[in-house]
Structure formats: C-alpha cells, structure tokens
C-alpha cells in the first residue's frame, strides 16, 4: 500500500519557539488517521507544513508522493482542507464560497453538494458575516466533502458543531473512507477518534510520542483489576508491570500493564478468587496519560 502522507524528522521553529522538533507521521492511503496532542503540541503547524503554507526547517514531508512546498498547486488539486476556525468573506454567500473552493480544487460534485447542504442543514444564501461559528464550519466542511479529491486534511473540523451535526460529520467521514479516500483528522473529541480512526498518532512538543492502531495503543496502557480472594495474596508486589498495589486483607486493587496481565491472574488464582473485575483502559486514560506527562514535564522544567 502506498502512503498518502510520509513525514520524517520534521523541524520548524518560529524565532525561538520550537513548534516541531522531529515529527514523524505516516498515513496509509485509504485510512482515517487520528492526529492528537494537547494544545500547542504543533498539530496545526504540521498541517500547515503539509499544505505547503509553511516551509519546514529540516526533515522531509511528502503528500500524495510529492513535496508539498515545491509542488503545492499539484498537491492541492487532490486535497481538501478544513481549518478549525473558518473565516469567510463578509459579503459572499455560503453557496458562493462552497462553489469557489470546489472550483479552486479539482472540481465539485454537484449532487453531493446539494445532498451535504441538506444533511448539514446549511442555508447557503446567508452572507459570510451572518453565519455562526458552527455554520461557518459547515460551509468549509460541505466544500471539502463535496470536492473531488483524494485526501482530506481536517484540523479540528467539528469545533462549534452541535452533537447532531457531529454525528452527520462522522457518517460523512465513514462514507469518505468507504469511497477509498484518505483522511487526516486532528481532533480532541476522543469518541470521534475512537469511532472513526483506524490508526492514531499522538504528538507532544512537536514530536511523535505514540503511533499505531488503537488496539496497539491500548496494549501499552494499564488495566485496572480489583479482586476479592479466598486467602491472603502473596507475591503480587514482586510481579513485573504491577502498579498502585493496594491490599486490604483479602481485597486487592491494582493496575497492571496490559501485556503483563497473565502473571497477575496466575498469582491471584493461587489463593482462590471469590470475585474479580477487570476494566480495560479507556481511550481517555490513554490520552490523559500522554497529556499529563507533558504537564508533569513542563512543571518539572518550571521548577
């Protein structure tokens, strides 16, 4: 399978601020790839480099097999972009803007345009200044989704949309994936990522800290186990991968790295298990762990 986006070792600084510090990112053709990270991690900077709006200081980026800086126009013919904060011309109607963007890309599918306007419940006759934030977002979304392109770059595209419209958006992205299009989706809405994304990359401080399928990533995190045993537990604290062990008589609560679960279960079953609950890691925990690490590091530096 060819890759829609390959990025390796990307660096970008603005004056003394380092926005990207060795970013790696691989997006396979035909997948929906989640792009996550705390505020200020460099997500939007990375997207702008992929659009050829910013020039990387070092590292390589290929979009649809081309250099996004040098071949910007050729690349742009095959991609559609939705920013997280859409600004419109105050005296152009939404319909005019949708058609403009469509024509400026590779063309617009008229039937799909009409269908999307209907599904997003957008009034295309309003002027740019009269739209709310969510409706401005819809204008850009309709223009992108109705465009005849191979790759969608969506930078927090649902900001300002109501839950019903978020649902419409998710269905649309699934349709895009079924049609073989590639989507890079930067988002903070974890349920959205969980439902839509085949793989995710998490970035922090301009560097990729985790990349893989959600199943892979889950594997890296902790499962919480609580059990009531027939006899006193023994040897749990010596097991590898066990954290936050809390033993109160015969009741045991602990966190264990998911790939070390076998050892814990064996050790628990020796005295005999009366009851057992095990909670798999949620996506929230996965992200919060990464996000928190950054805060901890930041605080550590501050001190």
């Amino acid at each position: 399978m060819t890759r829609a986006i390959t990025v390796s070792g990307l660096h970008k600084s603005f004056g003394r601020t380092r926005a990207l510090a060795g970013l790696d990112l691989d997006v396979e053709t035909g997948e929906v790839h989640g792009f996550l990270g705390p505020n200020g991690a460099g997500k939007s900077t990375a997207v702008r480099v992929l659009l050829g709006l910013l020039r990387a200081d070092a590292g390589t980026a290929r979009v649809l097999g081309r250099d996004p800086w040098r071949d910007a126009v050729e690349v742009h013919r095959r991609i559609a972009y939705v920013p997280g904060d859409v600004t419109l011309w105050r005296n152009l109607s939404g319909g005019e803007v949708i058609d403009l963007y469509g024509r400026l890309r590779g063309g617009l599918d008229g039937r799909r345009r009409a269908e999307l306007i209907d599904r997003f419940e957008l009034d295309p006759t309003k002027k740019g200044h009269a739209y709310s934030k969510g409706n401005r977002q819809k204008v850009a979304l309709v223009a992108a989704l109705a465009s005849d392109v191979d790759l969608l770059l969506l930078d927090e595209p649902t900001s300002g949309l109501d839950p019903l419209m978020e649902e419409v958006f998710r269905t649309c992205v699934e349709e895009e994936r079924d049609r073989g299009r590639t989507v890079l989706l930067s988002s903070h809405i974890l349920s959205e990522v969980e439902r839509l994304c085949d793989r995710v990359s998490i970035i922090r401080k301009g560097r990729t800290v985790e990349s893989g399928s959600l199943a892979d990533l889950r594997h890296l995190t902790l499962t919480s186990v609580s059990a009531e045993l027939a006899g006193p537990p023994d040897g749990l604290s010596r097991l590898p991968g066990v954290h936050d062990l809390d033993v109160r008589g015969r009741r045991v609560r602990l966190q264990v790295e998911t790939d070390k679960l076998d050892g814990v279960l064996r050790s628990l079953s020796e005295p005999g298990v009366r009851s057992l609950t095990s909670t798999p890691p949620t996506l929230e925990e996965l992200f919060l762990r990464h996000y928190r690490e950054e805060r901890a590091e930041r605080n550590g530096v501050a001190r």
Partner: protein
Amino acid sequence: MSTLAARTPRYSRRLAGTAALLRLALRRDRVTTPVWVAVNALMVLSMPGTLRNLYGTTAERTALVDQLATNAAFRALIGPVFDTSVGALTAWRAGVYAAALAAAASLLIVVRHTRDEEESGRLELVASGAVGRRAPLTAALLAAAVADAALALLVAAGLAGQGVGGALAFGIGLAGVGMVFATMAAVVAQLTRSARLARGLTAAVLGAAFVLRAAGDSATGDGSSALTWLSPLGWLENLRPFADERWWVLGLFAVAAAVQGAVAYALAGRRDLGMGLLPGRPGPPAGRLGTAGALAWRLQRGGVLGWSAGFLLAGVVYGGLTDGAADLVGDNEGARRIFERMGGHHGLTDAFLASMTGMLGLIAALYVVASVLRLHGEETSGRAEPVLACAVGRLRWAASHLTIAFGGSVLIMLLAGLGFAVGYGKEVVPVLGACLVQLPAVWVIGGVALLLYAVAPRLAPAAWGVAVAVLLIGWVGPALDAPRFVLGLSPFGHLPKLPGGKMEWGPVLTLTGLAVALVAAGLAGLRRRDLAG
C-alpha cells in the same frame, strides 16, 4: 442585583468600564495617534515660516489678499483669506487641509474602536464583562477627543506668537472639525455592520463637506455662502482665526458634536450587539466565482468603482478651475515660484494643470497601497489560508490582487484625464499624458508596499507611512522650498512636469523598471516565506 441597581446611578452603570476601555484604546493607538497629531501639527506650524519667506512684507501680503479676493478658483481650493497677518494667512493656507486630516484621523479612531471591534467579535467578550452599554462608544469618542485636544494644544501653543486669541481659535476649531467627524463616524458605525463601509461613508461625507465648502467659497469671497455654512470645514474659516475671531462659531461645532453624539448614543442603546440598522440581504445559493482572479475582483470591485468615480469627479472639478487659477497666481512672484516648483516653468495654466495632475498622482499612491495591502488583510484574517490550500499558487493569488492594484491605478488616472477633458476641454491629449505620466511613480509605491508585505509582513502597514511621506513631500515640500534631495526621495520628484514641460523618457523608464524590480523581488520573497495562519 437590585441592591446594586439601587446604589449605583443609572448613568454610571451605562458607562461602567469606560476608563479601562479608554486605556485599552490609547494603548492600541500609541503609535498611530501621536504620528497623526505630530504630522498635522508640523504641517500647520511650518506655515508661518514659509509664508514669511514668500510674502515677507505687509505690502506683499496685502497684494496677495487683494488678488485672492478676486479669484474664485483659488478660493475654492483653499478658502477665502480675511487678513494680511502671517497668522491669518497660516489659518487660510493650512486650515482646510489640517481640518480634513484631523477629521480623517478622528473618524478612523472612532470606527476602529467601535464597529471594527464589534465586527471582529472582540467586543462581544469585552461587553460580557462589567462594561456598560455606552462605555465602548464613550471610550472611542474620548480616544478621538484626546487626539484632537493634543492637536489643538500643539497648534495653539505653536502659533501663540502670531496672536494668542487667533492661535486658540484655530487650534480649537481644528479639534472641533475633528470631533464633528468623530461623532458622525459614531452615528454611521451604528448603522452599518461593516467597519469598512462605516469608514467609507463617513469619508464620503468628509468629501462632500469639502466640495460644499469649495462651491460656496468660489461663489462668495467672505465665506458667507449658505453652502459654506453647510460644511464643518466652512465653519473653521468662518471662525476667522487671527482676523477678529467670531467665537460664537465654536458653538456650531459643539452643537453638531452634541447632537450627533446624542443620536449615536440613542442608536447604540436600541440595537443589538453586532447588528446594524441597515438590513442585510440574502445572497445567491450558488456562485459563479471560480478563479482566484474572479475572487480578487469581487473583493476589490467596490473600491475600484469608488476611486474611479472620485478621480473622474476630481478631474472635472479641477479642470473647471484651471482657467481661473492661473490668473490669480500670475502676479505674485512667490506663489508663482511654488507652482513652478510643483508644476514646472511653462506658463501658469500648464503649471496649475501639472500640479493638479501631480496631486492626483500622489493620491493614486494611496489607492495602490490600499489595494496591494488587500493581500495582507486576506492573509492575516485567515481567509487566504483555505484559498491557498486549494490548487491556487501563491503567485497566481498575489497576481490576481496586483493586477487590480496596478491596472486600477491606470484606470483611475485615465478617468482623471477624461475628467480634465470634460472640465477644461482644452489640451486634452497633453493633460491625459500628464495624468498617465504619474503612473511609474505610483507603481513604485505599489512595489514598495508589495515588497514590505512579502518580505516583512508585520511591517506591511508601514507602506501607508511611505505613501503619506510621499504625499507630504509632494504637497508641502515645494511650499517649504525643501532641498532638492528631499524632493528626490519621492519617486514623484523625478517625473517630468507635464503638460508644458519636456517629456523625459529617462526617469519614466527608470521608475517603471524600478517598479518591475520591486514587484519581482516582492513575489520572489512571497514565494519563499511562511504564511501566517
């Protein structure tokens, strides 16, 4: 809540937060306002010295005043003169233009802190604080008042040597014109939803005030025409600074500002945040715009049409004044020297035509800067980003706006030439040539604006500074008898003085080449740099 309401008087609740907003406004204007005020004050305060150089003796000044009394064209341009003192001549020569500058600065300040804030959505967050309904408007008017008061103080102090009463009347009169247009901008900013439109409409009223005063003054020699009295710019001359001041005229400024201010407050109290009183219309559900060029034209066509109408009208008006103007200057050695420095040595009619076409060229430089900086506005507002994320190359995007900037400058100068043909009717081809010969210098200013935007985008607004500097060199330089190298700093200083003078292709081609080089360098720089998101 009810206890609060009981304790605080109503007016103070409506004004809550004014002090903080005023501090914010002054902080945001900490560069522009002092520059406006200083440039305007310098222009006024340089006058007495210049006039003393040109008309040193009372006899010379008396001769000038006598000629002015009989020349309608010159009165239309500058206004009538009421006394032979240096002070009265200063108020005459600088009055209309200093007042127009104060009016422009005041209206820009008010719109910037009212409708601009509202349109951008910034006011919404501000207004959600403990900020009274009238506070933003009050802070904006106070910010304009601070600027106008500073101007009044500088002018009054600087001219006090010519007579304290006259200096005071002139300074306060300038500030009065400023505040009339500040409060007018406050009214218009309540009506329109767009700050650009509010600025345009108020500026159009300022233009109309200029035309009314000019028409009135060409009809009567003492400012007594009803048309003159309709224009706030006419009130300033009727205040008669340094010529037995008519202090009661200051009451007109006060009444006008108070009435307009009251209307603005009444409107502001009745309407919703972000809304105007002029209704919006829906647009088409589908569009035909399909290229970067079509988009640029759609965004700039209103501006191009406005400038075109203005230049055509200016050509007609100045063309109509041409015959009379030459008669006036004829007899005074000093005035003739100024005109010749501005316009060349070949007959006064030609010199007048040359200085007027030159002035339109200087103003066209403002158009080209505004048009080129549309690129900057599109980029900083975030509207350029999604367009450039489509299959639109940067160069094509930039070229679409530059075509309108540079092509538009040709169009408006052509229309000015046509206007002269209508208003003056003689020398049609030479006058058209005189209009077009300005273009290479206009283009150089456009090239500088592009280069600034492309290479140092944060400094792009400095292009306005360049245009204003060129305007001042061209306008005030000849009157001040500025050294040749100063006049040479402006590209307009190198143009042949047409009509009448000899056409010199050397400087024209050099300036054109320079403009091409600036544009090329700008485009090369734009290709290499990061775009702001």
